[in-house]
């Protein structure tokens, strides 16, 4: 709220510059959280397992993107045209994260599939902590920067839509459009392909799906690959926009991605997308208007409120307990 007196007339209560800026910020953050939430939600839908290591998969994706950028000559002098470089970064990060997700599933979760519910959760906790500190050992505690400002003379930030209060840099457009494309792709995959159908069947009832001849192990591996690949893409996006990559980045992002999944309704793919946007916008606006240090607490508050008011989330269905 601006002071009234200075110019002698009543200024609009809403500062549109700040509002639009936070809106764009929220959409960008929301894209990232939605991509992370999808992985949580898909895995939970099929295995009923909270994959705590998911945030770390996202962190590794960001590091893979950084590695590709460095190998290609760094942001100041890349050997490829910018669009090719960005594609390489996204593809490498998605494959790297996807494979990591498959490895985690194979070695940390699959042996525990028939164990008591708490066992894979503790194993997941161990994986998360192990990966986090492995990254600390390998990459040290320093922040790595994608240095997007020097990339292609800063065109990613200079170009874009700039009209009045509307300021959207090219990089944010890329992030939002890529996220939308990945989500449409995922939605088509799940609804149109045989494997997607198998995935839905497995999520609905794993035992029955196995009896119908679906290779459940394969479906689970594919789910982990896709979910982790999306998280890897999210990691590169964060690296490009916020330019800070470090070993601890996955932890809080994972928590927020999970919150997004719960808000949208865990197990529901459109829910994860919606939840991501809600959390992203909530965080951006609370940073802009309420407090810049306590946005994590505000997201936590949203999680608690959703669990009290509507534990199934916005688009989730109530789980019927089967005996």
């Amino acid at each position: 709220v601006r002071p009234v007196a200075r110019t002698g007339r009543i200024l609009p209560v809403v500062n549109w510059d700040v509002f639009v800026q936070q809106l764009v910020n929220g959409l960008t953050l929301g894209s990232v959280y939605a991509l992370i939430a999808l992985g949580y939600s898909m895995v939970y839908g099929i295995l009923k397992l909270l994959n705590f290591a998911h945030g770390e998969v996202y962190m590794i994706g960001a590091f893979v993107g950084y590695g590709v950028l460095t190998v290609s000559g760094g942001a100041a002098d890349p050997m490829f045209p910018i669009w090719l470089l960005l594609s390489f970064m996204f593809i490498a990060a998605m494959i790297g994260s996807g494979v990591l997700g498959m490895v985690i599933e194979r070695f940390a979760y699959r042996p525990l599939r028939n164990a008591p519910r708490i066992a894979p959760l503790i194993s997941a906790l161990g994986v998360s902590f192990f990966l986090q500190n492995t990254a600390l050992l390998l990459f040290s505690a320093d922040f790595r920067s994608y240095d997007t400002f020097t990339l292609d003379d800063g065109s990613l930030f200079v170009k874009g839509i700039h009209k009045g209060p509307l300021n959207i840099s090219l990089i944010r457009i890329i992030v939002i459009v890529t996220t939308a494309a990945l989500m449409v792709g995922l939605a088509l995959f799940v609804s149109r392909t045989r494997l997607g159908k198998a995935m839905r069947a497995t999520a609905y009832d794993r035992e029955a799906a196995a009896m119908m001849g679906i290779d459940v192990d394969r479906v689970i591996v594919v789910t982990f690959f896709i979910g982790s690949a999306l998280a890897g893409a999210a990691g590169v996006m964060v690296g490009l926009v916020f330019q800070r990559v470090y070993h601890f980045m996955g932890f809080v992002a994972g928590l927020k991605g999970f919150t997004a999944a719960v808000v949208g309704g865990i197990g529901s793919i459109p829910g994860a997308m919606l939840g991501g946007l809600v959390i992203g916008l909530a965080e951006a606006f609370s940073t802009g208007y309420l407090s810049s240090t306590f946005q994590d607490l505000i997201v936590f508050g949203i999680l608690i409120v959703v669990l009290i008011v509507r534990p199934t989330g916005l688009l989730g269905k109530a789980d019927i307990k089967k005996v």
Partner: protein
Amino acid sequence: MSQLSQIGVDSWVVEAEERREAGRFARAFERVPREVRFGTFIVAAAVIPLLTSNEYVIRVGVDTLIFGLLALGLNVVVGFAGLLDLGYVAFFGFGAYSYALLSSDKFGVHWPAEVSLPVIVLGAAVVGLLLGLPSRRLLGDYLAIVTLFFGQAFVTFTTNGNRLTLFGHSGAVDLTSGPNGISGLDPLNFFGLHVNSIEGYFYVALITLAFVMVALHFTAESRTGRAWKALREDPLAAEAMSIPVNRLKLLAFAFGAGVAGLTGMISAAVDGAVFPDNYDIPLLITIYAMVILGGAGSLSGVILGAITINVSLEVLRDANQARWLFYSVILITLVAKMRPWSKLAAVLASLVAFGFAFHAIVGAVWPAGTKGEAAGGDVIGRAVQDWVIRPEHHAILIGNYAFVALIASVLALTLLRGLWRTVLLVPTLYLAAFVWENRLDFEPSVTRLIVLGALLIVLMNARPQGLLGTARVEIG
């Protein structure tokens, strides 16, 4: 509840224990009467300050006792009731910060311990109860992440608690002194009796531990304790037996929080200061590793886990001692797991031969590859110098690649069977020694965290019952 329905509950619960199989080690341990075990442990611990005047040793003892208390509290939640509470350290921090606010110059409040103790313990339990409420309906999965988030929120809050400016109130309120923490805490003061020395705190922690152990033992044997075990074994069946599942879960949760709060109070008084970073994820993982290693559900087990892990982590601080620990753990594991003896001897012999051969080849091809200095460098350090290659340059980079290769190799080992497994074991062990000598022994603080994470994964996959816990026999 009529008398009739209670009969069913009790017999079902009694059977719950019989459905679990104790391990060899656990059975031998259980043959010793419980009172003897408990008495031996307390007496043995009590004489430590009499035998040594080394402040460091006593300090490690105090830390171990505090970890033991923490592990006992977590054991109620995880071991008895089977709930995954990942915000446990926040309650520990809550106790510590409450004590800091109630007994320091921060706000000029100086409550005696006999007043602040019940306030803090009850306060922590109530906070635990409030946190458990929203996730009540989906307790289990959601509880884990809600509590994890709560732990993170606690760290965020204490780190930024020196400038609370929420909702436009700009008159920044300083509650927690932010990242600098609160220091200059009063020593514990029970009814005018001040605890001033580290030996004094040792006995305070020991008496508290003994008290909590006895209390938990009787709780575990009580109706409530047996109901906890029943709902851990099979919540659905427990509910069908008319056990009030949600209420009991919340009770366990609050119980654990109360113990954590009590421990936080003691720990804050020992340290004389509190910092937000002390109540973060690494501590949580450490306590979980203690409970899981010792065997969730077993009181003596988690104490054993706390001693093992805390002493090991202390040993890891020093490069030379850490090396001893590393090679002994590998050797002990091999001796314990490998049958027959001939196979073990073959593996060890080929490992030694492989190392010397590899060292000779690398020394001939790339002389700088064997000229690096070991961390520490006592007898063993110099001895392995001729066996493990230590590059003079790029040791960190090569070590990093070797670390990734080691992970891949260990994962491959778990897939292989028979001869190939034994064959791959030799280079894997050598690679482990290489990574240890070139990378891990130089980074003790990261190494201990990596080891804890790996320990949780390995234990969960290979021996979920830990050392003294009982294996769960799956019921249909």
